[in-house]
């Protein structure tokens, strides 16, 4: 495989909590690579650090209380984004790496027409005239499938539906043809039927524009449909990375296994849905040892005592042998214990 477009190494983003007595280690040593043109899924429950990871990539984490620790590296086309001056960083934001947020209603300024907001990036980065920017905006609105764009371009956000607004947000993010698009749960706030449309749209645009897409989601259905490779996060850490096919066929980490078992299935409607017991602990006090051990069905003494490293595994059956599969679990060293499952 070729060079990664974006590589994140040992990213640590901590927050000092309100009264200053604790430190929330929201993202705690995350590493992954993004290759040109691929779709990478960032998966995990709420509170496991997906969104903070995404915000850290563009340094949008509010500082204070947030803080990206020294030693973290976010390498984009050979440059470390964490070392850029504010001006250099602004040149990357929107032009090279763009982002689509979860809540389309909240992500658009209520007092401006949508056309003005979509064209903003083009005016900022490409110094287009108003007229040229408007023409380009029309083109983008058309591209993202907004019916009657010539009329909608002058609409205010409150005049459009959530699905339309998310299309507007996508147009806004893509107007400068970024090489990387980060979509942070772009469908969570939408109706199910609209969700499918937005995911399809993202897929189509990615193919047409040839950008790399980081899709943050907790919806494994979306992952199965669209994503090439998955990074599973838990408690501020990467716990497993694999191609989508491998992940679904044969999850290595008990957390991934739990996530997959909690998806309702049409082909086996009588099976009881299995949840993962408990919930993600607070980021101010991750459990010692393996951070998943209090909720895991395989826990033994070793898991409580020591945190496993991210084991690398190249299985013969793996389809894309170029990518290493990784998982952060002692089971990879002691596979015999897989039989010792206790609910």
């Amino acid at each position, binding site marked *: 495989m070729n060079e990664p477009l974006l590589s994140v190494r040992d990213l640590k983003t901590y927050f000092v909590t309100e009264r200053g007595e604790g430190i929330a280690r929201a993202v705690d040593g995350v590493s992954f690579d993004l290759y040109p043109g691929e779709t990478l899924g960032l998966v995990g429950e709420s509170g496991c650090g997906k969104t903070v990871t995404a*915000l850290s990539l*563009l340094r*949008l984490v*509010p500082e204070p209380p947030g803080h990206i620790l020294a030693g973290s590296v976010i390498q984009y086309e050979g440059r470390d984004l964490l070392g850029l001056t504010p*001006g250099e960083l*602004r*040149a*990357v*934001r*929107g*032009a090279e790496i*763009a*982002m689509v*947020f*979860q*809540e389309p209603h*909240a*992500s*658009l*300024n*209520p*007092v*401006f027409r949508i056309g003005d907001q979509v064209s*903003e*990036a083009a005016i*900022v*980065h490409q110094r287009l005239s108003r007229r040229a920017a408007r023409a380009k905006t029309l083109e983008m609105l058309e591209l993202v499938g907004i019916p009657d764009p010539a009329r909608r371009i002058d609409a205010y956000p*409150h005049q459009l539906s959530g699905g339309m607004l998310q299309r507007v*947000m996508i147009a*806004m*993010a893509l107007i400068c043809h970024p090489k990387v698009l980060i979509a942070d749960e772009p469908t969570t706030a939408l109706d199910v039927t609209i969700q499918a449309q937005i995911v399809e749209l993202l897929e189509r645009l990615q193919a047409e524009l040839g950008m790399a897409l980081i899709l943050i989601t907790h919806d494994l259905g979306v992952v199965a449909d669209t994503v090439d490779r998955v990074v599973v996060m838990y408690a501020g850490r990467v716990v497993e990375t694999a191609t989508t096919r491998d992940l679904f066929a044969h999850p290595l980490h008990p957390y991934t296994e739990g996530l997959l078992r909690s998806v309702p299935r049409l082909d086996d409607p009588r099976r009881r849905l299995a949840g993962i017991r408990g919930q993600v602990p607070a980021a101010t006090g991750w459990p010692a040892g393996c951070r998943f051990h209090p909720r895991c069905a395989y826990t033994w003494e070793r898991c409580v005592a020591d945190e496993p490293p991210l084991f690398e595994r190249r299985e013969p059956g793996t389809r894309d042998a170029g990518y290493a599969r990784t998982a952060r679990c002692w089971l990879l060293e002691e596979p015999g214990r897989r039989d010792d499952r206790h609910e």
Partner: protein
Amino acid sequence: MIAGAPVISLGAVAIALLVSLEAQRRGIRRAWGRRFFQHPLAWFGIFMVTTFVLLAIAAPWVTRYPPSQPLDIIALQNRPPSLLHPLGTDVYSRDVWSRLIYGSRVSLSVGALAMLLAVTIGALVGAVAGYMRGGIDAVLMRIVDVGLAVPRIYLLLLAVALWEHLPLVLLVLIIGLTGWFGTSRLVRAEVLALREREFVVAARAIGGEPGRIIARHVIPNVLTPIVVSAALGIGNVMLLEAGLSFLGFGVQPPTPSWGNMIADGAAQLATAPWSTLFPGLAIALVVTSLNAVGDALRDALDPRRYRVGDA
């Protein structure tokens, strides 16, 4: 001097009436307009302010006598209201109506300009402090603390003491430059909440620079408290100007202002009450009206008062 003065005055009042009725007719078509006119004094406030503004603009045509020139110090001193002098004459035999109208030019424009200055500075300082946070915020807010801690009247008297005859421009500057502290606090608090809103983060994600984001995304969304504090502030500034002028530090005679008219007539309060009564009444009416409009604006624009189905 112009015979048509009474007719033109009544015409101005009639126009004000029409304008405020039309404003109400159009206003109640929208939800926020309905909320505005629900305030019991909103319509009256609009009507009064429009009336005074029109009269002030039309001053040369609605008055018969020059405002600052004694007419006949023997025959026309302290005359009660009559047909020729509808509000009487003052101790220097000047026509009180003329002085009141020309005085409204001074009082209204000092109030409006000083408030405009104060609100502009306050909004900018508040927006920058709230958006940038950190050191810039700390420095700006300590300046505001100092400004709020020193009584404003001392700052004003200090400045006044430096000039023997205070030019009007300077009066506006002084009142404006000492009046922005409260507004900046208000705006800063709003901006602190606003900067975490997703559309501001989205604007940063696009690569907008702080100045652009403050101008395009922050200030337009805090216009409501700015407009309300401006409307409520004009009344205060007018009172301040009247107070200063009454003390002899504000608008310098013979230029009329409502404050120094009251000062001129104060000694004759028992014998010629009209020379103080009418400017006093004018101040009370206009300030009450402005406050009513400000209150109604707050009712209309404050999003916390939005109810389901409105907006």
